[in-house]
């Protein structure tokens, strides 16, 4: 919880702020606002992402904000829909004008088929928004060099994708995420493609600092139960990581002794 004083030793720290939960939840694609709310509650998350869209003035509907307790959850607006840096920057400024804290999940996906993040526009937008005082959390391809650039620019996390959005295919980019985790000095949040609790456990086991899940929680008949399952997956993975997973045996393969010379006279 964001309630001060309840932080544990293993709190997630982003931009100097502590969180107990390492599971972030996306609010898209839910069958109803109630379903969204029950998934959020069951997941134990403290950070939720939201998007910005034009109101349908002929049919405004319920604002989903009334289902999100701002005392309990940090609202993290994303820039989904932006196809380039300029659009993303505009969306970020709009989010700020809506009274949100200046945290933004940068999401620039010009390709409407796979919704893959544009590395060049993302870096461009990050640089602009950081100068304007935003805490930028960039959704990005699992590219270790890009991660270094984004971190250098001042992003408060990096968010490499596990697999393309909505595919539920898990940690397809595991090898590259390993490198990103090894090299990053900011928290690494695996975002997109995580479709099962085993996937998020895997991400946490290899050392990710947090994960973001949306589709898997929305696209299920029982969002509350799934929310709880993912919560446990994240916790299990993190605990195993902290405990230190057992080694997988590796054998040396030299055909003739390499250190015999140390024993010769």
């Amino acid at each position, binding site marked *: 919880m964001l309630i001060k004083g309840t932080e544990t030793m293993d709190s997630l720290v982003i931009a100097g702020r502590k969180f107990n939960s390492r599971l972030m939840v996306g609010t898209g694609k839910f069958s109803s606002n109630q379903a969204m709310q029950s998934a959020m509650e069951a997941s134990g998350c403290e950070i939720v992402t939201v998007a910005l869209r034009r109101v349908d003035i002929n049919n405004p509907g319920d604002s989903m904000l009334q289902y999100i307790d701002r005392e309990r959850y940090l609202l993290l607006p994303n820039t989904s829909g932006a196809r380039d840096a300029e659009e993303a920057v505009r969306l970020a400024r709009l989010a700020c004008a809506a009274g949100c804290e200046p945290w933004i999940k940068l999401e620039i996906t010009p390709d409407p088929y796979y919704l893959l993040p544009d590395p060049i526009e993302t870096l461009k937008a990050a640089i602009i928004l950081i100068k304007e005082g935003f805490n930028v959390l960039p959704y990005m391809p699992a590219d270790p060099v890009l991660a*270094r650039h984004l971190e250098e620019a001042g992003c408060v996390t990096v968010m490499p994708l596990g697999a393309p959005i909505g595919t539920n295919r898990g940690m397809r980019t595991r090898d590259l995420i*390993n490198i990103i985790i*090894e*090299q990053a*000095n900011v928290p690494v949040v695996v975002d997109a493609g995580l479709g099962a609790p085993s996937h998020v456990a895997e991400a946490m086991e290899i050392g990710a600092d947090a994960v973001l899940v949306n589709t898997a929680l929305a696209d299920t008949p029982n969002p509350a139960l799934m929310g709880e399952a993912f919560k446990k997956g994240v916790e299990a993975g993190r605990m195993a990581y902290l405990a230190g997973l057992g*080694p*997988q*045996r*590796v*054998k*040396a*393969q*030299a055909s003739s*002794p*390499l*250190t015999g*010379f*140390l*024993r010769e006279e």
Partner: protein
Amino acid sequence: MSFFDLLQQHPAAELQQRFSQVETQDIDRALTRSKLSLDDFLCLLSPKISDSQIETLAGIAHRITSQRFGRTIQLYAPLYLSNECHNGCKYCGFSADNHDLRRKTLNDDEILREAEHLHRQGFRHILLLTGEAPEAAGVDFIEHVVRLLSNRFSSLSLEVFPMSREEYQRLVNAGVDGLTLYQETYDQVLYPDLHPYGPKSNFQFRLKGPERAGEAGLRRIGIGALLGLGDYLTDAFYTGLHARYLMKRFWRTQVTISFPRLRPAEGGFAPRSIVSDRQLTQLICALRLLAPDAGLVLSTRESAELRDNLLPLGITQMSAGSCTAPGGYEGDESDGEQFTISDHRTPAEICDILANRGYEAIWKDWDGAFTDQH
């Protein structure tokens, strides 16, 4: 966080205690890790390592080096420009206390003659060395030499006194792409004893040198401890810690590590500990596992035989046919030398040995034209 701050997080007393706790199963476990933690690295340095564990360690180091670097060894040559020095380092032939040493700073003609000698032998990567005497061989002098030589050699590195970031920047602009700066010992208590006066007595300024170089954009930064000066185990650990810190912070820079080993009775100085061949081998292999992408450099301080045996275990750069006295390539090689070299083989001989052992000697691995600096 600077490296100095990081260093405070690993006090020597704690390291020593940890070393005393390491058991053989800890070493076994560390050997199975695909990514070493600092504690794994510490375990791999343990004196309790058995012969069969060292063989396993060597095998892994060999495999990693082959994968990352192939079967190649880059050759370089040191070129001493000056042996004048205001520091009183107790272990060094250039010490200001050494009044018997013939002091010399090369002039342009002499430098060009030495350089031609090396160029004829095939070298294209040169390491320029001086003592610490700004009025004789300071930043201006070094910059001048770099400009003099930069069109003859592909890569010019420096092993000189630590400089400010602006000075490093100047030299990068002049054509320097690498820097070597040994901390000698990371022991803050011992360091002042060994460096009682002169600019080098400033521990922190020297320690931060590689960081200033990184900020100035140097492509290659080399570090190392003079093995045997201080407590070997802690200096070995700190070297690994330093390498890891620099690699994480300066991600566009290649970090290299050297293993200068103090030999007994050098200039009358008695080293605190004698680092054995076995320990040196263990350190080289452990560092290869800790930092799979770091360059590991072996100079001609070590004997031919040992260098040949260490070849497959992680070494990526070697010097050859070296001379540690200014003007010594064309003149008297023992007149005014910093230390006595052990491997006297010519570069051509070393190339043959490398080829026989299945390694390709790389003379040139860089070109200034890539950065269009000069």
